[in-house]
């Protein structure tokens, strides 16, 4: 399984993602520049955190217009795995691959800390190595992470079990329904504000993020073959 880590101008968690997947999990990983226009040969795509295009206009709004984006949209529509953390999540909503939007934290503050989360759905490509309703800890670091969607969209997310991660303790940003991460309807696109790539080694003090990548590596290849068929 070969994984693309897309690098936008202003991405700053691309190396963390690369190291988590390659050095820690032993996966084949390549950086793909935002200037490229195809993802041929890749089985999964990762959008890193950071401040793509300086967060100008709205977080993730400008990245939507980069060269690589049509290829990412096509890749997702084929049912292949796409993952976005933090700014990557914001980009996925702006690109219309995930419903809703991320708005400024209710506190108006940049929040950087480790928070407890509940794994709400352990049947996705990205979460099979977690137990149902398992409580895990992951770091967050964002100023614009308050998930918002209209009532109808929220109800649909809940009904389809698209809410994958929920804040278990105090809600750090004011997100509706304590949402921390969601998938699209078909479950192959996951966006989340927390940073699993920052919690993959004991020396980092936390390994709760590791199983997300291991789940993907275990399930992703199968998903890609199904999508191609």
């Amino acid at each position, binding site marked *: 399984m070969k994984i693309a880590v897309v690098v936008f101008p202003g991405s700053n968690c691309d190396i963390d993602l690369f190291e988590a997947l390659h050095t820690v999990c032993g996966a084949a990983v390549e950086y793909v520049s935002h200037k490229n226009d195809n993802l041929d040969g890749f089985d999964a795509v990762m959008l890193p955190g950071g401040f793509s295009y300086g967060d100008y*206009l*709205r977080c993730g*709004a400008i990245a939507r217009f980069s060269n690589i984006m049509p290829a990412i949209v096509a890749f997702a529509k084929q049912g292949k795995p796409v993952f976005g953390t933090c700014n990557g999540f914001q980009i996925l*909503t*702006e690109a219309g691959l995930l*419903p*809703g*939007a991320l*708005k*400024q*934290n*209710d*506190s*108006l503050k940049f929040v950087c800390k480790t928070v407890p989360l509940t794994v709400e759905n352990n049947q996705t490509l990205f979460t099979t190595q977690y137990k149902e309703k398992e409580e895990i800890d992951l770091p967050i670091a964002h100023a614009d992470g308050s998930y*918002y*969607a*209209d009532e109808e969209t929220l109800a649909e997310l809940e009904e389809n079990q698209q809410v994958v991660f929920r804040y278990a303790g105090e809600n750090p940003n*004011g997100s509706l329904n304590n949402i921390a991460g969601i998938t699209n309807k078909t479950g192959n696109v996951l966006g989340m504000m927390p940073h699993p790539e920052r919690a993959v080694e004991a020396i980092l003090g936390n390994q709760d993020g590791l199983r997300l990548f291991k789940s993907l590596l275990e399930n992703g290849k199968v998903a890609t073959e199904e999508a191609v068929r």
Partner: protein
Amino acid sequence: MVNVRIFVTYKQSVFNPQGETITDAIHSLGFSAVKKVNVGKFFDLQIEPNDKTVAEIVSQVSEQLLVNFNLETYHYEVMEEA
């Protein structure tokens, strides 16, 4: 050339944390008459209409880029025509 100002604001139904914080600050200045503040942003565009009208250009630019309709709404004013 037409100068257009496009105003983008959160929808009424969406909580505007900056607006609430600024409202609190205004109250601590003693202006209890101010009941609500909604913070938004504006974009000044200089447009030279070609095959599309100003209204068409403004609505398409707003809808495709400047506004995220999950959260926001917009209106615009033609400032001056030269």
